[in-house]
């Protein structure tokens, strides 16, 4: 296997593709990120908010997008497709077609004049057709890359040979009608597929009237309506009359759980999506009422059930368990729903608007793609992968992540992306690498102690700025400011020739600080920093004044005001620049070893992934044997044998020369920080050992809840699902007749004290019931359930079980089933179970030969001690709390520590495996580096001023600052500090400051605001 090149092709730049690319690039691996649309971001930018935290989708995504486009190891291929993969794993040859963009991205300054003038209006795909865009456009306002492209199918010139307006107005000559599609060949070691999913198109659901009735919309269209930056600016309105709807119906499972359209799987995310939308819609309009028509509410993820409860209790969202048969439009544009309850009753109700919660389906063209790339699909057309190889396609060296191999929500996509990266490591060179601090390769000039000599460059940005702001006046004003050595106007500050100008001015005027007044630092600061470092200045000696995005564009009708404000902004930037000091990003050495806590499925898998990548792993297990909870699992839907897999896994772990295993061990103490942890543990011998390592993976698992309900423990005929599975495996059924078997779900879950769904019990019970069917075909199986949460492809098995005659009774927390021992004296007594049948509305009594309880999954009480040692948080259920539930699902806020498996929350084997790989992948982003660079913008302590009061320690979310108990002085850990400044503002004594955003700098900035302006007086 050749491993020389060390690069990976990632197909699809949604959140999964972005995450995979960033993880790989962080490990020093080159990435070709191939994306079909003109922007990265995928589906996430279309979302307004994300469940269950109502996080703003763009807020959390856009930093990752910028990071992705800026990373020197990531090469973007937008408007591109992957045509062929040839060669062998480790040495693939990929053929990619880059389609013509017709706009030179180097010349385009994203000023938008072309779009303004373009006469062709077309439906905006990003806004689901709710808005128009032009034939030359950006995919959406915050697209990355931000350059324009021409839609060849609609461009007048490209289709009919007339127009050329964009070419005429483009100030930089960036339009290139002669642009051609290009075929390129890329040599890579491995391929990661992340093409995502498509929403189901409900046009086929004629009875719901989509497209016929203007007030019936899809959930994605509704999401755009809710978005503050969407076509309606967040003011939801009916297409028929523009009126704000007051009652909205959500119809669930449109295109999911439906055999008739060959979609007998659950799309997994739509329940939460609808709950989120109903909450957000309510937040927009307090008088709105939302009603959700559903079969089962599948709020199975971490903290999802609380969100569901909140929707009902705080937002008054109504949930109606029924099947909608038909939607009919009334004369006033309202819609009448006809729906059927489980008992057959039919009702009608009128709504202002109907939202169809559309399911998720494979991408259009995925069959074609699978043919081209020679990868297998499952029967629904999703990419095929197996329970125990959940990230592998059928082709070696080609991995899959995101929703391409089954519906997933955001965090699951991110987890699978990091997991796929860990998989790809197998085909990559394991050498560790030394990241460089960047810089222009030009020796840095020494400026400390010099009087500030500031150069100011005021950009016209064509007419974007100069059309509103009197840029000449601003430059003249800047020239008169103290310490400004040089000020000039430039037409496009970011153009290549202008960057050269800046560099030469630095030399000519011996400048030691540079200010550029142009667009936003969010997009352009990195470019200018790079430029001044090429001119020999420390990149932190740069400051930007945003006179376009936050001035000329926002005050187009007030040119004088805009000019005055531009002066303010420039003056503030100069004031701040005056106080800038060179900052250094100090390297922090990273120990290459990892500590993995917990020897179950997750821990062992994580350990193997890390060890296979060439790192020593210390695997610590508290029990006598490896295997954890998986030792009790014997069956799988797909017929594979979990125990066979487990024993293979244990053998590999024990035989691996890079994994050292401690059993019956306990961890006494963990200190240190990313790259430099020290752990004290006692092993079987009772001897205290000390280890150093660079990362920690927490995989301590969970445990089955011990219930006292339903006569558990008082008869051998009452067992948990775990015990039942073993029974099925070794045939140790209770003696005698086994005809009536009752299964009760949610024992301990989703109720006071454990307000969460244990996620796997429904599928597990279905799985076990199907096993029972095989062994005792004549047994009657009864289920007492609240919602059946067989999400994803498990839905098929649920159907199979129902078709086989199993009966399901719904119960609520107020109408729980009851169980009595028929002979209380008999330790093997049969059990009389009473359930309320809501359909027949009467009690059903079953004398059960076996009662199987789906007991909850509990957090380990030991978590608390470990959490304290690691200084990481637990959630209110005692499970480890990740850094960000959406986009950092296996990281902790404290760097270098990761979580996976049941320690994070309930999940099945496949999900645990994926998450374990992800934790390994994330750990490797650190371990693969010999050192990491601390941030330049970090807090610092003036020891003589510090009183050691501990305010800073209390407010730091990253455990990056602590009071040294000996010295009574706060100490910043450069490796952990993220530079937010929360501690600095908490410091009463002025002992803390933030480099690059120092107090004195900020004071001078807003001191400069007091300028008395002539513009305060108008005629």
């Amino acid at each position, binding site marked *: 296997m050749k491993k020389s090149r060390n690069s990976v092709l990632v197909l699809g730049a949604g959140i999964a593709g972005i995450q995979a690319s960033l993880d790989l690039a962080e490990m020093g691996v080159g990435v070709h990120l191939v994306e079909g649309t003109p922007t990265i971001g995928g589906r996430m930018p279309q979302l307004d908010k994300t469940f269950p935290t109502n996080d*703003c989708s763009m*807020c959390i995504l856009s930093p990752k997008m910028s990071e992705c486009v800026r990373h020197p190891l990531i090469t973007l291929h937008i408007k591109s497709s992957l045509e062929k993969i040839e060669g062998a794993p480790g040495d693939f040859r990929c053929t990619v077609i880059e389609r013509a963009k017709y706009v030179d991205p180097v010349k385009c300054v994203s000023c938008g004049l072309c779009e303004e003038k373009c006469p062709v209006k077309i439906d905006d795909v990003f806004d689901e057709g709710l808005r128009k865009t032009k034939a030359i456009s950006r995919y959406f306002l915050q697209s990355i890359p931000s350059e324009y492209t021409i839609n060849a199918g609609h461009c007048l010139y490209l289709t009919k040979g007339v127009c050329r307006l964009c070419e005429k107005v483009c100030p930089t000559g960036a339009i290139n009608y002669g642009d051609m599609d290009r075929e390129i060949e890329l040599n890579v070691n491995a391929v990661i597929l992340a093409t995502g999913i498509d929403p189901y198109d409900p046009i086929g659901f004629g009875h719901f009237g989509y497209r016929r009735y203007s007030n019936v919309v899809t959930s994605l269209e509704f999401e755009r309506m809710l978005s503050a930056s969407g076509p309606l600016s967040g003011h939801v309105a009916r297409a028929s009359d523009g009126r704000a709807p007051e009652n909205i119906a959500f119809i669930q499972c449109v295109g999911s759980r439906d055999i008739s359209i060959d979609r007998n799987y659950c799309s997994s995310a739509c329940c939460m999506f609808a709950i989120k939308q109903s909450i957000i819609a309510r937040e927009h309009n307090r008088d709105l009422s939302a009603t959700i028509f559903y079969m089962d509410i599948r709020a199975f993820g971490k903290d999802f059930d609380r969100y569901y409860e909140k929707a009902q209790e705080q937002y008054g969202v109504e949930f109606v368990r029924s099947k909608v048969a038909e939607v009919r439009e009334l004369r006033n544009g309202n819609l009448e729903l006809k729906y059927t309850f489980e008992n057959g009753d039919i009702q009608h109700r009128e709504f202002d608007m109907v939202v169809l919660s559309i399911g998720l389906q494979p991408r259009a063209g995925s069959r074609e793609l699978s043919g081209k790339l020679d990868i297998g699909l499952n029967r629904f057309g999703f990419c095929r992968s197996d329970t125990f190889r959940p990230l592998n396609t059928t082709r070696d060296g080609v991995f899959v992540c995101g929703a391409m191999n089954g519906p997933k929500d955001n965090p699951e996509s991110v987890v699978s992306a990091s997991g796929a990266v860990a998989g790809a490591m197998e085909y990559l060179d394991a050498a560790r690498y030394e990241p460089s601090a960047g810089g222009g390769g030009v020796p840095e000039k020494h400026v400390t102690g010099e009087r500030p000599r500031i150069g100011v460059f005021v950009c016209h940005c064509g007419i974007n700025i100069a059309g509103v702001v009197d840029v000449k006046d601003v430059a003249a004003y800047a020239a008169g400011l103290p310490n400004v050595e040089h000020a000039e106007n430039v037409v496009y500050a970011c153009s290549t020739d202008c960057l050269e100008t800046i560099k030469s001015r630095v030399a000519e005027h011996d400048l030691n600080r540079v200010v550029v007044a142009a667009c936003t630092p969010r997009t352009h600061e990195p470019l200018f920093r790079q430029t001044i470092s090429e001119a020999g200045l420390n990149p932190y000696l740069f400051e930007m004044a945003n006179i376009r995005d936050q*001035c000329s564009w*926002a005050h187009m009708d007030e040119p004088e005001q805009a000019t005055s404000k531009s002066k303010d902004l420039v003056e503030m930037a100069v004031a701040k620049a005056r106080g800038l000091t060179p900052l250094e990003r100090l390297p922090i050495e990273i120990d290459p070893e990892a500590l993995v806590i917990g020897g179950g499925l997750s821990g062992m898998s994580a350990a193997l992934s890390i060890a296979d990548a060439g790192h020593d792993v210390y695997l610590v297990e508290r029990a006598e044997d490896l295997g954890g909870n998986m030792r009790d699992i014997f069956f799988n839907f797909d017929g594979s044998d979990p125990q066979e897999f487990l024993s293979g896994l244990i053998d590999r772990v024990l035989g691996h020369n890079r994994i050292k295993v401690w059993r019956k061990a306990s961890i006494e103490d963990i200190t240190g920080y990313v790259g430099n942890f020290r752990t004290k543990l006692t092993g079987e011998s009772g001897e205290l050992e000390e280890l150093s390592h660079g990362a920690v993976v927490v995989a301590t698992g969970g445990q089955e809840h011990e219930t006292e309900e339903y006569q558990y423990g008082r008869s051998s005929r009452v067992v948990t699902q775990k015990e039942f599975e073993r029974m099925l495996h070794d045939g140790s059924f209770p003696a005698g007749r086994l005809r009536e078997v009752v299964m009760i779900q949610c024992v301990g879950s989703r109720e006071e004290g454990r307000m969460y769904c244990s996620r796997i019990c429904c599928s597990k019970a279905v799985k076990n019931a199907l096993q029972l069917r095989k062994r005792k075909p004549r047994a009657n199986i009864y289920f007492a359930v609240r919602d059946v949460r067989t999400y994803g492809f498990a839905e098929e098995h649920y159907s199979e079980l129902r078709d086989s005659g199993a009966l399901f009774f719904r119960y609520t927390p107020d109408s729980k089933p009851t169980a009595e021992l028929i002979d209380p004296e008999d330790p093997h007594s049969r059990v009389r179970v009473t359930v309320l049948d809501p359909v027949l509305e009467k009690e059903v009594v079953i004398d059960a030969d076996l009662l199987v309880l789906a007991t909850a999954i509990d957090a380990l009480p030991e978590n608390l001690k470990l959490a304290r040692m690691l200084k990481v948080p637990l959630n209110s259920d005692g499970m480890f709390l990740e850094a960000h539930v959406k986009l950092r699902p296996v990281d902790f806020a404290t760097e270098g520590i990761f979580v996976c498996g049941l320690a994070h929350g309930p999940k099945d084997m496949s999900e645990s495996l994926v998450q374990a790989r992800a934790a390994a992948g994330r750990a490797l982003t650190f371990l693969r580096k010999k050192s990491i660079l601390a941030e330049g913008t970090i807090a610092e302590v003036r020891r003589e001023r510090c009183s050691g009061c501990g305010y800073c320690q209390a407010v730091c979310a990253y455990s990056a600052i602590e009071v040294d108990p000996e010295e009574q002085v706060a100490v910043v850990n450069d490796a952990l500090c993220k530079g937010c400044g929360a501690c600095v503002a908490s410091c009463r004594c002025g002992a803390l400051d933030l480099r690059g955003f120092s107090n004195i700098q900020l004071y001078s900035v807003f001191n400069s605001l007091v300028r008395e302006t002539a513009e305060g007086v108008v005629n």
Partner: protein
Amino acid sequence: MNKEFVPRITSFLCKWCSYTGADLAGTSRLQYSASIIPIQVMCSSRVDPVFLLKAYLSGSDGVLLGGCHPGDCHYETGNYHTRRRFAIVREVFESLGLESDRLRLSWISASEGPKFARIANEFTEEIRLLGENPTRKSIFL
């Protein structure tokens, strides 16, 4: 010649949400008051309460503090601390009969360009009604 009062509003905007939201307002060409003078900070929690005082006493007619929505902070919990600190400053102002309406805290996300523009305009209008900050002319400060 008649004088029209143009307020000056010092606006601390966190880099990840509010500043991005303000950029979006511009990218969307939403027009809002030029009184808003933005200062980018890494996190709203970087803003020391004393900054607010200093801005007020130095003559800013209004002081706007923009951060991520509660729960959305790029730095996990920064804005929760911001909120408490702001509550304290506001209470200090109110207890002394100072114009606490000149101080404003707003949660503006990266996608809330329209909200940013709306707040900018609303706040400017409120300040216009309050008039010029009297500290501007006070020689005792």
